[in-house]
């Protein structure tokens, strides 16, 4: 929805592996990554970002048992998911690697943008240090990876005037459990406190985007990179 008008989109083309879509109502072209109209009558307008997750099917099912699942309308090619991902990486890259980069161009990162600041969290660093507590744009953030080492979520660590520091509860079976050192409450992967003084409370999710490093850098040239051991 933009300015009270409901738009529907179709794919127009690809640029740096990030696509341009066209709305059928005004014919404007929109950049996928930013949701911003780059050409046409809507130029300069932005789509509002809807909070979304990219998580394992089982996690979503556990948290949203009432959810529905989109069906493809045409026969989707039978293909292994990892194979699909590999096919994506077979394309050449749009630019030469930057020698100053500590990350490879195809490194998977979690991109976060808050208060005008962007930061890339390499997935393997997040997995290793899970969870990561950090600051971005003045916001205390928490980055946490689920047991599958793939599903990542980000949260604002501020709740009811407190800034929480969270750690992994060791030796737990099943889904991961975090503990905060301020109240000793226990938290699950959805950001909800499951026991302790904070029980029932929820951390606010922040938008995260799983991306290749090179692509994130194109659209966020001033991005910071989170590095291990800080």
């Amino acid at each position, binding site marked *: 929805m933009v300015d009270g008008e409901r738009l529907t989109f179709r794919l127009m083309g690809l640029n740096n592996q990030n696509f341009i879509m066209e709305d059928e109502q005004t014919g404007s072209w929109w950049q996928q990554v930013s949701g911003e109209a780059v050409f046409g009558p809507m130029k300069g307008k932005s789509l509002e970002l809807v909070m979304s997750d990219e998580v394992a099917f089982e996690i*979503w099912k556990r948290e949203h048992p009432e959810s*529905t699942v989109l069906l493809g309308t045409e026969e989707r090619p039978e293909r292994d998911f990892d194979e699909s991902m590999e096919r994506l990486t077979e394309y050449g890259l749009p630019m030469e690697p930057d020698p100053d980069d500590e990350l490879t161009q195809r490194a998977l990162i979690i991109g976060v943008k808050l208060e005008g600041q962007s930061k890339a969290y390499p997935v393997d660093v997040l997995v290793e240090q899970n969870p990561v507590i950090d600051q971005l744009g003045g916001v205390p953030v928490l980055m946490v990876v689920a047991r599958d080492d793939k599903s990542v979520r980000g949260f604002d660590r501020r709740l009811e005037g407190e800034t929480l520091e969270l750690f992994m509860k060791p030796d737990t079976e099943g889904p991961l459990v975090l503990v905060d050192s301020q109240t000793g409450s226990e938290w699950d992967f959805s950001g909800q406190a499951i026991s302790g003084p904070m029980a029932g409370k929820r951390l606010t999710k922040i938008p995260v985007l799983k991306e290749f490093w090179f692509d994130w850098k194109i659209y966020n040239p001033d991005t910071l990179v989170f590095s291990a051991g800080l």
Partner: protein
Amino acid sequence: MRRPLTILLVLVTLAAVLTIAASLKAEHRMSPMVAQTMDSLALNYEFDRWSPLWARGLLAVGLVVLAAAWWRGRGEWRWKSYLGATFSALALAGAVAATHVYRVEVMLFKPLSEIAYVPISEYEHDDASDGPVMGVAIGDEARAYPVQTMIYHHIANDIVGGQPIVATY
């Protein structure tokens, strides 16, 4: 008598050559890994606005007809006949280049013709082939978009919790 026809032919040829050039340029936007500047994208956008497929088709057909008329009239000069044939070939190449762009688009991207979904408990999920899901929860409605399905369709215009959204991958 012949002169206006010749001038017209030259103009249409020029237009056809431009069309071919622009078509080939426009094809670049289909190439996933070609870095494009905002300028070249702007050119694509303008090209797309001003030359829908029917206009390009018409141009190509018109060129062939004109070239044929010109060729017949100037049959006495053989080299001009060859020139006429070249124009026709150019026109055909232009038409092919122009339609090619659109065909690639339809071939690569299968748009969802309708949004259909099932309760998550009934969805047959195969972790190896489906991969993760993109999940959206608005109000009391939650929807999961399997990434594998989205890699194939890329765009889903949907309504979740009463709010129109577009899910993209």
